[in-house]
């Protein structure tokens, strides 16, 4: 009941407008958070207009779900919840308008990953790449009966994308170095359900989660770590992993690294804090702490979205590119490399030609330099 009324709490003050990356990119009030709550507030005056209703259904998917509006709002408007609810409603009301999401849903239903690739291949690409360096890596892949203290939940992007290979390599090398007792779920890892959650399909997401829950319990994991903030949201908030600690990899490394070697490098990086990590999951200090420990020289970027969240890369790729482009210009990224800790943000920056590194790569590099 409270949630249903939440949009009514908006006093239409406008404080959220200028923070919204959509407004900056599209320069039209239509894309602002206030516009969405306003439409809901005056819906009774509009509901006969089918064309407008259709436009609104599209509009609720033109949002990166970065949560910045909710953060600045002093009127307790639960904006992310409103968008989630409206997305769900839109999908149910007019599934035919979201055929592009159907392909995603189909992949997830059939192959349990967002790419529709054979699920058995989930631990194939990166094992091929890493086997020479970490000969025992295959033993780290979960099979029924195997158990470990730590389970690494790689997520779809890190499992399948070649652009994430260096991060995966750095992650495993670092875990090996510090002697973590870990398993990676391999073919038994299903998508965490985040894309379906963002699409408003809670039932579909729950089917995936329940499988993951069973496997992690069978592996007797005490801790699950992931490098993907989207997976973190799902694992921590929706998987009901009772008795299992869920951490972002930067949180885990901040705790476990002790005194790592430091990079002796004067290059200045720009740190992009992933919205889902710092704003939604509240993980703010650990990524910075790890960077300081390994001596990364970084400046802070504005705490705004890269443009890749909320499925916008799929629902409105032009908008997504525009957000990243606006940021590149505003933040004078030029030749600067962006350091971050989210595979999705990395993909987004890479897609518009911005160099990126993951924090885990920086840790690995510090060790490598020492080893050399």
């Amino acid at each position, binding site marked *: 009941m409270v949630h249903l009324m939440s949009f009514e709490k908006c*006093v239409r003050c406008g404080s959220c407008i200028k923070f919204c990356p959509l407004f900056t990119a599209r320069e039209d*009030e239509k894309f602002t958070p206030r516009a969405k709550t306003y*439409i809901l507030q*005056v819906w009774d005056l509009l509901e006969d207009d089918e064309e407008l209703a259709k436009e609104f259904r599209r509009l609720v998917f033109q949002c990166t779900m970065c949560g910045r509006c909710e953060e600045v709002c002093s009127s307790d408007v639960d904006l992310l919840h409103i968008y989630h609810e409206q997305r769900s409603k839109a999908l149910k009301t007019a599934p035919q308008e979201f055929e592009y999401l159907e392909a995603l849903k189909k992949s997830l239903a059939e192959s349990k990953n967002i790419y529709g690739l054979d699920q058995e291949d989930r631990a194939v690409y990166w094992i091929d790449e890493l086997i020479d360096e970490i000969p025992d890596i295959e033993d780290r892949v979960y099979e029924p009966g195997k158990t470990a203290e730590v389970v690494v939940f790689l997520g779809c992007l890190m499992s399948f994308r070649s652009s994430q290979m260096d991060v995966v390599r750095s992650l495993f090398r670092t875990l090996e170095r510090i002697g973590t007792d870990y398993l990676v779920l391999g073919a038994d890892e299903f998508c965490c359900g985040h894309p379906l959650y963002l699409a408003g399909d809670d039932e579909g997401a729950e089917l995936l989660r329940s499988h993951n829950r069973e496997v992690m319990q069978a592996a007797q994991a005490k801790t699950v770590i992931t490098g993907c903030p989207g997976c973190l949201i799902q694992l921590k908030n929706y998987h009901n992993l009772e008795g299992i600690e869920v951490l972002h990899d930067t949180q885990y490394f901040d705790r476990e690294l002790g005194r790592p070697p430091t990079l002796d490098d004067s290059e200045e990086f720009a740190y992009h804090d992933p919205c889902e990590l710092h704003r939604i999951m509240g993980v703010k200090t650990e990524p910075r702490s790890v960077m300081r420990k390994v001596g990364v020289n970084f400046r802070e970027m504005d705490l705004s979205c890269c443009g890749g969240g909320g499925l916008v890369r799929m629902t409105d790729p032009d908008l997504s590119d525009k957000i990243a482009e606006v940021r590149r210009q505003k933040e004078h990224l030029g030749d600067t490399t962006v350091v971050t800790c989210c595979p999705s943000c990395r993909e987004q920056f890479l897609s518009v030609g911005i160099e990126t590194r993951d924090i885990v790569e920086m840790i690995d590099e510090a060790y490598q330099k020492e080893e050399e």
Partner: protein
Amino acid sequence: MKIRDVVIGANASIFYRLDFKKIKGAYYPKTEEDVDEVLARARESRLGVTVKGGGSGLSGACTGGNAERFIISTLLMNRILTINEHEGYVDVQPGASPDDINEILEPRGYKFYVAPSSRDIATVGGILNTDGGGNDTWVNGTMRDNTIRAKMTLYDGRKIVVDHKGVRSNDGALENELNRLGFTLNDVASSHGTLGFITELRVAIRPLTELEVVGAVAHFDDATELGQTLTKMIAAKSPIKYGEALVEAHPDIREDLQLPLLILQFPEDYTDDLRTITDFTMLQPDEVERMKEIRIKLPKRNPREGIQLALFEGYGIHDQSLLKMQESVDRINELLISHDYKPFAKYGHAPSKWYVGSNEPAYGMVMHSREIKPEGKSGHEVLKAILDIVDLCDEIGMTPKPEHKWPYGDRIKRARLEKIREVVGQGFNDFIFCDDCGEMLGSMV
């Protein structure tokens, strides 16, 4: 209908349920030339025009009522054009907010001293049109006091530049006629978008003073004691740099505060003099910040159950109504309750300065009020409550909604605007002058 044409109606006032079919176009110009183009299109289509800044105004004037019209947003006209520290001004486009301006100025050691609580979104064009100001109007004045000149485009496309002395224009006849009328920035201040489109402003800036101030809180037994203290501060011309009164607040948002109270910042060497006016407790800087934070969020907070609204946003309490402030507050509350509104919060800048319709300054407290919205009231019932408040204000000597927020009730200002519009022409926000303006607003609640 397109969503673009609907959401241009979004604004912070209670007048937000528009007849969207009558919005014939929503525009986002970036330059004066873009504005010229939209105005030409409006003339061709014989449509009126409403200018909208941040839409944070509480009078409903940025909606343009319910007439067929174009709405032109200034949100993309937000560039800072010139910074002249030496002569103490910046030229800005009308859609820049005080925060936008100060973000650029503060690293250079300068500041634009107009700070409404809505300074993150309110635009300088909107603030001049409502003659807004923050809790420092007492020392820094309202927007008109901080504006050096404004460039305006009239409905027929003619251009004028208005300052505190008069008008300049390429059109000699127009210039003469407006100067004969004594047209100055005083007329543009609080004109609620009825005269023309402000396309550029020159606003005053001053060095960022690092004046050491100390913070304090004064508690009072009731609002009358608060009002009498404010009266003494006004008479003594107290150098209060920040003054905010919290008069009452619903338990859901009151936290641990004992009300009424006055949050103050003043130069350290004024401490002893201030003690001759009121007792107070000194605050540490972090305590002052916490109280300021509570204050700035008050207009936006909601009760645990139900929703708040600003039925009648600002009561200008001065002279007798200030000296008997508790009585004034009680009368307001009685009236609110008789219309089924539960008082939620009363707070505001104090001591404060504002201007009345004759352009005379008034001093006292601009008390904002928020109420818990009752279920099932029709727009006309809500408007009736507002009009009853206007009458009450007349009766007990408050400025009903300090006129910068309430053009519809200020006869002197309205008559003056009508006279000027005989020269500059109509076309901008004509609805304010219609006989059925009240009816129209009632339908939009």
